[in-house]
């Protein structure tokens, strides 16, 4: 069934101030650039954004932070963004820092109908405060709950008209789990092909998890830490 929408405007229809969004990507790798630009344009505010990172000052989620569109960030690492740190230390921005593996698993759980699970990560730290502790195999674990979102916005390499997605290299990261956990999931792709062109063995995210798909207009794909060796 056809999930294609014409453009980023149609893709982001229905996103409103106060909503909870999941945004794929690790650092600036595999982020939904086109949709983020549209969110800036739409000017929606008071967003709760679940995303492993918060972008850099002038790219990625940093753009939403600059416009003070984000009320709360749910992330594992936000160290590349001065504006973030400023807003957080001043108390303007609520922040829920979550161990990266727990964040990934909580998104998957949200998509998979698993309301809660036990993990050893964070036991004995402030992450465990207020959470149930239970021992399994002689080792303490804490109970973590599922995360879901009004909209999940992911970025894929290739997608087909039915919403099936293929990611490239480490741009996969959080995108597949977030695609599962959105009530409505929007996928922006570099290449959009007819149904049947992707090998059904090689699809990373089945189209059942995607409600809207479109070809992104431009992908800057900024590199955060360009590191090379000499020939």
């Amino acid at each position: 069934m056809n999930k294609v929408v014409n453009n980023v405007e149609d893709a982001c229809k229905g996103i409103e101030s106060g909503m909870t969004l999941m945004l794929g990507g690790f650092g600036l790798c595999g982020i939904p650039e086109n949709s983020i630009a549209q969110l800036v344009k739409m000017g929606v505010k008071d967003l709760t954004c679940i995303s492993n990172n918060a972008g850099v000052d002038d790219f990625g989620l940093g753009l939403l932070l600059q416009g003070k569109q984000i009320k709360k960030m749910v992330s594992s690492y936000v160290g590349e963004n001065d504006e973030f740190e400023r807003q957080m230390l001043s108390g303007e921005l609520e922040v829920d820092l979550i161990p990266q593996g727990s964040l990934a698993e909580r998104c998957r759980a949200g998509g998979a109908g698993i309301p809660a699970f036990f993990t050893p990560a964070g036991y004995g730290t402030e992450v465990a405060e207020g959470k149930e502790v239970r021992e399994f195999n002689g080792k303490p674990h804490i109970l973590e709950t599922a995360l879901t979102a009004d909209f999940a916005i992911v970025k894929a390499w290739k997608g087909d008209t039915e919403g099936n997605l293929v990611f490239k290299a480490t741009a996969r990261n959080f995108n597949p789990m977030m695609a599962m956990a959105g009530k409505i999931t929007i996928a922006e792709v570099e290449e959009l092909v007819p149904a049947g062109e992707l090998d059904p063995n090689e699809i990373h995210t089945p189209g059942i998890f995607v409600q809207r798909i479109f070809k992104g207009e431009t992908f800057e794909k900024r590199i955060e830490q360009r590191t090379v060796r000499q020939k």
Partner: protein
Amino acid sequence: MALDKTGIAKRIAQELQDGWYVNLGIGIPTLVANYIPEDIEVEFQSENGILGMGPFPFEGEEDADLINAGKQTITARPGAVFFDSATSFAMIRGQHVQLTVLGAMEVAQNGDIANWKIPGKMVKGMGGAMDLVASAENIIVAMMHTNKAGESKILKECSLPLTGVGCVKKVVTNLAVLEIKDGQFHLVERAPGVSVEEIIAATEGDLVVPDNVPEMNI
């Protein structure tokens, strides 16, 4: 003379064993990949979703879609594989990764580690560190023995918010190799030219010093 960061990485590389999958944290741990003993094979996992991480790319061959957990451009070795973050931490939490090397701000003699937060000051987040230290059977901390103010980072108790409890068993610093057991640090090796007295002076936690402390062989 105390080791530099490269020296610490070289010493840790000696801990690697053939056939191990290894996760290297940001900073000094990343350097360990440059000193793998020639007679063994190890694979590097980066928690953002690659197993079989290769060296940095040549200039002009960077791929924005191929980075490590430090967000640096990297390459993939033949036989590498990409996966999502949930699978990545399934490897880590499920103890399929044999060794984790990471940095720290503080390590305590009960094995506690603090490396993610300075209240009111540094709020970068824990990234994957809490999953790594809570899950790994085998953790080596790579760090300087003291901070910039000269204060020991090898403590009786951590003062900063913890990353994990009772999980560190080995620490390699610019001055020494320490093991943690029975709630104490044990001095195992000293850096070339560094005296036992210097190490004792730089260590705040309880330190067990054997009669003979061999020099590292780097």
